[in-house]
């Protein structure tokens, strides 16, 4: 069976044609690739393609289907799109709830919470300040909004991608 894989903005179609030990043949968007692929360290693959040597490092993302893929100089966000992912993608589009959440993209400590439930905030206003590694980052709203819920308080430690404020 074939899989759809999202890499940055590209949606690629891939299928395993054959496999023998570390030699595989895949069909990727109508191109046939013969590779020698070997996991040499946990999450690190050595790939030989037409005798060129590639080292690829995979870091699993939020779940087993998302990866950060590092090649020599580049990083790619890669997602395996199977039925579950498709279903979630469609749902997300429908209710668009993700846009209503202000989340911290990095772990840190909440230094300031400048809003409370019910507040009306103007476009560009800062709602939360998070500090990590001696640097403070301000989280702002892009448009005039009403604060629906504040999920963190000053002094809280937040992890990466943790929702902090819900806006309407």
């Amino acid at each position: 069976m074939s899989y759809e894989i999202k890499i940055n903005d590209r949606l690629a179609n891939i299928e395993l044609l054959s496999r023998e030990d570390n030699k595989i043949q895949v069909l990727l968007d109508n191109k046939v690739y013969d590779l020698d692929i070997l996991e040499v360290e946990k999450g690190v693959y050595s790939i030989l393609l037409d005798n060129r040597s590639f080292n690829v490092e995979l870091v699993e993302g939020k779940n087993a289907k998302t990866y950060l893929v590092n090649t020599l100089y580049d990083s790619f966000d890669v997602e395996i799109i199977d039925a579950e992912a498709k279903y979630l993608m469609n749902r997300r589009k429908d209710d668009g709830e993700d846009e209503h959440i202000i989340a911290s993209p990095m772990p840190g400590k909440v230094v300031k919470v400048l809003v409370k439930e019910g507040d009306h905030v103007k476009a560009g206003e800062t709602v939360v300040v998070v500090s990590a590694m001696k640097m403070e980052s301000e989280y702002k709203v892009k448009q005039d909004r009403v604060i629906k819920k504040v999920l963190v308080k000053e002094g809280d430690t937040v992890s990466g991608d943790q929702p902090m404020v819900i806006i309407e």
Partner: protein
Amino acid sequence: MIKKVLVANRGEIAIRVMRSCREMGIETVAVFSEADRSSMHVRYADDAYYIGPSPSSESYLKMEKIIEVAKKSGADAIHPGYGFLSENAAFSARCQKEGILFIGPDSFAIETMGDKITARKTMIAAGVPVVPGTTEPISDLKKAVEVIHGIGLPVMIKASAGGGGKGMRLVKEESQILDAVSAARSEAKAAFGDDAVYIEKYINSPHHIEFQILGDKHGNVVHLFERECSVQRRHQKVVEETPSPIMTPEVRAKMGEAAVAAAKAVNYHGAGTIEFIVDDNLNYYFLEMNTRLQVEHPITERVVGVDLVKQQINIANGLELSFRQEDLKQHGHAIEVRIYAEDPDNNFMPSPGMIKHITEPLGLGVRHDGYAYEGYEIPMHYDPMISKLIVWGETRTEAIARMKRALYNYKITGVKTSIPYLHRILEVPAFIEGRYNTHFIEENQQYLKPRKNCSGRCEDVAVIAAFFDYINKLEKIQPQAITKDLGNNWKDFGRKRSILRL
């Protein structure tokens, strides 16, 4: 003689200090905050003591607690590293009072050099050049013109009460002087109700060049030549090198003498750094003195061949310097880059987190000072520096090529790092040619933007690797998985999902 050193620091510098202690047969004591129980310095030391919660104000900055641990552990000396308590005059004095050797200068030197105005006056008295300018506000037009002629163009006129750029005027030509002074004064008057101005020499293309010095407790001071630190982002040094590509032997000798004079002016003992601002014509002016070890000290160690931490310890022990100025030489070229846990392609956002995988660069001419290891969680409470990469080459060209080679196989996954950004810096023409000043980063934005180096085929390889890893994971859970059609079998899919999320 010192037998046991408490290192009042963390991260790479704590380990770097402990390494020299170990080579000298000196025992080491680590102190650690809550976030640092698993930190490498705790593992490297002979002893380790918990000193408080994660914020440094409650741990690494707690003098009381650190003195207490020093006494309890039997440490006879404290090395402060850089940052934290390293330039705290009160701490130096406190150590002395408690009979513990502070491996660094006395409180008088720290205090004098710590206050900008006192330091400037002390330097003027010692004959060390400072940036020419007025020290008192001027309210008289004629006086202002006189002063400007005295300093020489270009100058910067600044409102005495000022701030925010208001009442500031840059004067480059003779003909502009009168108009500029008048405009600055009236603007200052309007903005702050006070038309007094300061006048200061304007350094057109400033270079940040610093001199390493060592002084013992017997009045001997030597310098260990310069470090070029003009590659800065938001006043943070990013790349340092020695020798400076713009230095001449004559200016080096003169600046070195000035650096020694600066240190002698405060009876300095220990390792210290005199920072100068230097213009394109190699006029140099005292900026400030750092009364501690610098982050970038390894490039000096490599080119001069001296272990600066050992020298600090010998000096603290009261020994005389074992070399004179004429014994010291520069051999070849060294470059240091700082690896930060940050995302250079996303506004340098800090990137704390767990190191998943690390491949350290090795081989000829490469020194690596770090503290991270696989599985280590970089805490969010401290500086984002993971490590320093220092290379040496016979020539500057070789050193640059070697640094690129070292960065090429330095791999850290789990957190974003500045490695790709550093690589881009090394390929900027102005850097390669050694023609750069502190405006370097700003002026070379077009070279420093993220680039796609990976061709279409290389992107395909990334897709295939992820795909292969994914089907292997499925395989492990359910040997027939890849031959089944998941899409139409929802029950099966649900089961698999729950397993994958284990």
